[in-house]
Structure formats: C-alpha cells, structure tokens
C-alpha cells in the first residue's frame, strides 16, 4: 500500500511539472561523456546519466559484402547488460531488457541515412568493413535507451578507420590494411539519431526517468531525433494507451530536447577531438 501511495505522489508531481529530485519534466540529468577510453577498439565511449552507465566499443573487421547490397558496408549491434548493473539482471533476467535495447538501437540505425554505409565499402561486390558495435551496461539507473543512443553516437564519432590499399585483381586481389595510426579516416556521424524516450505518467509525460518513475508509468515512446529536427524513428511500447494529442505533444518535446542534446554533444565531441593528443 505504501508503494501505491508513493506511485500516486510521483505521478501527481509529474503532472504538476515537479519531480522527486526537483527537475522539471523536460530536464535531463547531467550527461557525462568520455570517448576513446578503450584502447583495443577503433572507437569507444562511456556515457553516464545518473546511475546509468554504458560503455560502447566499435571494432571494425573486413568481411565479404552482402549480395543484396554489394556497395555497402555493414554494422552489427550487440547489447549486454552486466549482472552487476542491477540485481534483477542476474542470470537470465537481462535477456528481455537486452533484446528491447537492441531492438530500439536497430530501429534507429536501420535507415540508410544514419551511417553512410557506402563509405564502408572497400571493393564493390567483394569486401567491405563490418562494424561490430558492442554496448555494455555497467549500471542501470533509468533511461537506458537514451544513454545507449548517446554513447553510440559518441563512439562512432570517435571511430578511426584504417586506410586499405588494394593490389591485384580478381582472385589475386590483396587487401593491405595500414598500421599507421596517422593514416586514418573518420566516420561521418552527422545523421546519427539520438533516442529520446518519453514516459507517460498520468496525464503528463517525463523524459529521463529514474527507475522509480518508470515503474509508475503506463507506456512510453521512443523518438529518434536527428540534428536537423527530423524524426528518424518512433516506437510506442509498454502496456498503456495514449491520447493522440498527448502523443503529438510528446513528439514536439522530443524533437526540441533531441536537437538540444545533439548540439551540446556535437560541441563536446568537437572540443574533445581538437584537444586530444595521439
């Protein structure tokens, strides 16, 4: 019964735009980003929002192209929630949440615009780069989807791809991958989306929810936002029904917040890369 009272209190607070930690409904907690923290990768990042902490590593390998798309590279995203992240995730408990995060990240990056996959093609019809993107959660404190998407964009931004020289033709074709740390090129992340998840609480909604707040909500929407303010993907999840006018308001808010996050993230990443020493 105590939990029920607390739930009512949290929901009522959000409807009045006042949350338990003093934030407004559209305020994010402080987002901490660090890139190039994992040395054995092509690109990596660490993102922390409150108690949620996620590590992303990008490793590139040369593979054969997919016959249906002979001029494009590939990406493969994998999600892992460490058992230390949260007590409910020990054993097989993490499977559902991992699958859900993977589904959202795949949705965001399913569009051809997100990452220019033709840049990843080495030899048309033969070889291309496969980016193995691994997302690891070491702390779960609410708002895991947004943290994962921000960390992913940061990791891709920090990714350096080695140059490849092609010699010979046909069967005798040989690829030589350069070891030179200065002979690298960077991926273009201008069109990488960020996920803004809005949780419906009572008659209102909130972003960047804590675990407690997420348990009070009925239904949530993931909105993938591009820096230009376009919506790249949308998905409503959770058992709960939404009013269409409320949904349109949520999309408005998501676009506003998403564009703001993109701007600040881009500024931070740019500053980091210009001051980084190799």
């Amino acid at each position, binding site marked *: 019964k105590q939990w029920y009272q607390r739930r009512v209190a949290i929901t009522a607070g959000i409807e009045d735009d006042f949350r338990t930690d003093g934030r407004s409904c559209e305020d994010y907690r402080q987002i901490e980003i660090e890139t190039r923290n994992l040395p054995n990768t092509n690109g990596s990042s660490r993102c922390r929002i409150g108690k949620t902490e996620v590590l992303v590593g990008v490793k590139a390998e040369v593979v054969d192209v997919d016959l249906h798309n002979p001029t494009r590279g590939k990406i493969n995203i994998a999600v892992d929630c460490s058992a230390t992240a949260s007590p409910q995730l020990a054993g097989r408990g993490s499977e559902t949440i991992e*699958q*859900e995060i*993977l*589904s959202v990240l795949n*949705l965001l990056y*399913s*569009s*051809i*615009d997100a990452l220019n996959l033709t840049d990843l093609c080495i030899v048309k019809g033969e070889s291309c780069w496969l980016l193995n993107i691994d997302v690891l959660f070491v702390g779960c404190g609410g708002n895991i989807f947004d943290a994962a998407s921000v960390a992913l964009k940061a990791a891709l931004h920090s990714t350096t791809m080695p140059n490849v020289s092609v010699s010979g033709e046909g069967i005798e074709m040989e690829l030589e991958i350069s070891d030179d740390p200065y002979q690298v090129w960077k991926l273009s992340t201008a069109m990488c989306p960020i996920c803004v998840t809005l949780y419906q609480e009572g008659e209102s909604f909130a972003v960047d929810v804590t675990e407690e707040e997420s348990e009070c909500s*009925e*239904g949530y*929407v993931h909105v993938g936002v*591009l820096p230009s*303010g*376009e*919506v*790249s*993907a*949308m*998905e*409503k*999840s*959770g*058992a*709960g*029904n*939404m*009013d*269409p006018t409320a*949904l*349109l308001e949520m*999309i*408005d808010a998501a*676009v506003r917040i998403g564009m703001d996050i993109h701007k600040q993230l881009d500024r931070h990443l740019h500053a980091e890369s210009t001051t980084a020493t190799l």
Partner: protein
Amino acid sequence: AVVSTQSGHYGRGPLYMKVGIITKAQGSVYFEMGNTKLIAAVYGPKEIIRREEFSLQGKVFCEFKFMPFARKHYCEPRQNFEEKMISKCICDAMEGVILLEKFPKAQVDISIQVLQDDGSAISLALTAASVALINANIEVKDLVVGTTLRFFDNNEILVDPTMEEEHGPFSRYTGGAGFYMAVLPSLTQISSLKQTGKIEQSQARDCIETCWEACLRLATGIKKLLQNSIEDDVQRPDT
C-alpha cells in the same frame, strides 16, 4: 460462424473476416486482406502454468509467427528476433485493453500465425488478436484496430501497402517512411505505434491523422461483422 466481406475500407479493398474457425480455441479469427492471410487464436483464461508467477492480475502471453511459406524467402520454424519483438508489441497492446483483474491466477495465450504475408501483416495481426479475444468472451476495454501506412517524399501516402509497396523499389533505401498504428476507436486512444524512416514533424502529424481515419473506418466494419456473428450464434447454437 459467419462469413462476410466488408467493402469501403480504402487502401486495399475489402477485409474478409471469419470468426470461430478453430473449434478447440476459446476464440479465433481468420483475416484476409488482399493477399495477406493470417489466423489468430486465443486460449484461456486458464490456470497459470508456472505457479511461482501467481499474481492478482491475469497474465497475457503472445506468440507471433510467420509460417515458413509465408514470405518469398524461407522463414525458419523457430521464432527469430524480429518475431519475438512483434510478439512483445502485440502482448503490450493486448495487456492495455484486457481487463486483467477479472482473471487472477490465470493466463491467456494468444497465438498469431501469418499464412501469407503481402504487406501490412503486423497491424492486421493486432486487429486479429483483439477480435479473437472478443470471440473468446474475454472482457476488453475496447477493440484494437491497426493500419499500416507507407509515406513517400512527395507527401503521397499509401494505406495498407502490399509487400511490394512496403519494401519494393520504394523501400526506405530510396526515401520515405513506413508507419503502423493501432487504435482504440471508442476510447480514442493509441495502443501501439511504430515508424521507421525519416520524416518531418508535420508529416508525422499527417501520418497519425490518416492512420486514425483509416482505423476508425475499419472499426465500424469489424463491429458490424462481430455483431452479425453473435446473432448467428444465438439463432443457430453450436454444441
């Protein structure tokens, strides 16, 4: 059981619906829209199988599957990742309408099999699941009706696209967006929603509105068909 067609649903021509086709299931329905055919069956409420999962609210389990012969390429008999996500989506949508407090310590199994996929399968599956629940006499808040849209760069919208229209030359690789939405017509709420592909905010609004109208039209037709089927059952009771 009643056989009837419904015309006037713009997009892809009439929706053919037949309830009670699976005699062993408490509720079932067969849907056919163009070349997309699927069956939904509901078993329950029945005692919950795993006793540790005792709860004061009923539980809903859903399984969505494309038959191996449903699509152009072979679909493995085991559920793949995409089908698991669709199952979860349908489960969430149904949990939002079923009155779970009415059957504590019990579970409801929903099984949806797509016999032939010619586009718009997921939204049709959501509708079919809800009709099967009503056929099974499980108390629900409202009918769930789903529609799919294909949205193009030149602001053209196709309602309930066929497989070719959804994934063909006009696929996301050349622009536009795919969108499906499930709606509760009487409560005027959105139950489920998914959009892939890039669109602007104003276009998102247009998509939602068009989908809404299409869903409401479909809902009136389905309600009438359900009414007919109940009247028939009353006049000609089956054992």
